[in-house]
């Protein structure tokens, strides 16, 4: 048996063992993702169910504001981006645009941010409070 043949067999054995070992690692990594039966996307969807029922149209454009749009309110920039994309996924086929310019706006504000926002926008919107810090805002005619 030549050295090359030994090396070839050793390499094949090494690749096979490595494939199994890292296959197990990949499986462990998959098992470490979240938990069974409660993925965050599904939970997020449940939170927004009432909003869709209250909107008077099935497809259209609504505004979207969060703590970061309220001067003086605290927010986490990473969460804000994630929540925006999740909300767009949930609300499809409604298009969310940042800000409160459209007739209808979805506000995802904690209680302090909502207090600040409502003082600054008194009389401009009809506010429909929903669960979990969500508010549906309908711009009043000028």
């Amino acid at each position: 048996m030549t050295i090359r043949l030994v090396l070839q067999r050793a390499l094949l054995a090494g690749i096979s063992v490595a494939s199994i070992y890292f296959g197990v690692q990949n499986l462990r990594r998959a098992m470490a993702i979240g938990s069974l039966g409660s993925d965050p996307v599904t939970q997020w969807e449940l939170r927004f169910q009432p909003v869709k029922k209250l909107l008077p149209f099935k497809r259209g454009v609504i505004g979207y504001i969060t703590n970061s749009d309220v001067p003086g309110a605290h927010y986490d920039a990473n969460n804000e981006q994630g929540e925006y994309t999740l909300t767009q996924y949930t609300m499809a086929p409604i298009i969310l645009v940042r800000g409160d310019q459209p007739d209808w706006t979805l506000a995802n504000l904690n209680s302090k941010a909502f207090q600040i926002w409502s003082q600054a926008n008194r009389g401009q919107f009809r506010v429909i409070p929903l669960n979990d810090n969500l508010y549906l805002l309908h711009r009043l005619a000028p």
Partner: protein
Amino acid sequence: MTLLSILVFSPSLLTGILIVHLLWPAGGWKVFWVKLFLGLGLGLGQASLLDFVYMLLFSSENGFLFVQLALSAGLLTAALVRARKDFPLALPRIQPSRLQIILMAGVILPAVLSALTAVNVWAREPHGAWDAWMMYNRAARFIYRDQAGWLGSFSRQMDPIFHADYPLQLGMDVAWAWQAVGQETQRVPIVLSGLFMLGCAGLLGASLNLVQGPGQASIALILLLGSALIGNEGASQRADLPLAYFFLGTAVSICLYVRSKERGLLILAGFMAGLAAWTKNEGSLFVLISLPALFIAFFRQQPWRVLGWYVLGLAFPLIVVLGFKGLLAPPSDVLSSGLNRSIQQVLDLSRHLTILRSFGADVFTFGGWGIGILPILLVYALIFKLAPAPDLRPAHVAIGLALSLQALGYYGIYLITPYDLQWHIDFSLSRLVSQLYVPFLFFFFTVVTDVERALAVK
């Protein structure tokens, strides 16, 4: 619901397999497996393309499943008429050698581990990974939830981060399957991702089994299944594995054309490349670079004729992609830097160094095996030696050039990206490498000495 989600795709899969069979009438069991796995992706691809056309014409109708049923029935009739009485398949008399048995057995455990990994990912992330629900499943929802107004899904008012300009391969397949099963179930995108995982691994194994032998196919599968690409990435419902599948399908069809000179295989290669463009924007780059790659590879063998058949296969998917991009989709953000800024970025040496460093690091770590699978392949090539078959030379030139130019294209996109360069690289490079990894494995194992020949004790 899982069974229904599988069944709903079956007419499309049958259509794909029959199209492959009609374009490439060769017989035999080894060929059958290649046809099966080529047809799987082709079936999903044609369904997505045709549903796009169907929705343009009949957006308020729900009859696309019947289109697929009629198409598969028509193609089945055509295949049966052509086959007449002599059904080409006879049960094979398989007598594998001891070495073949050992190598094939080596695939079983990595395959089981990949399957378990995928099931875990699906159970824990039924909506898929971030990109999956942000782009592909979101697009499917926009189309399915208001079919009559589906063209509003590509509104320029949509925030560019949601990439409404992305091609619709996965989105259309998910949307029409939801229409067919009558509800928006996550089992549909899960089944779709599973079909592409099966297709990718199956096509790699079946094609190497045909071109080289079962030993070579087994080693390639052991390497593929041991990486995170199939079980983790494939199950995440992103478009990178489907794109890798279509790159592989193009490479395999070109290689088989060189072996058999069946021009139907060039039509298939073109169709597969077109489906890559319908899957992700990187696929459009692949279409562009595949044309000069083919021309150079077949320079001494009537290159215009080769290109003609290839473009014939490419035509339908490319017309749909161009129609979508030109008439419906909002502008792409990646090319939004503008000419002056792009030139400045290209001339910035620090950007070149950043990209080269990241490419180098990714090549040496890709696959999650610590030292990286690509350096392992380099050692493999040194120990087993390269032995490319002279008659496959045009295929090797075409595939090697296409993969190299594609990598160069990715390099160019990083140069002109409007985003922060390091963020863009960190976010996407490993997935770009994974897109090229599967066709590269096919290329590599057609060039390196066949494992069974190398280990045959003299």
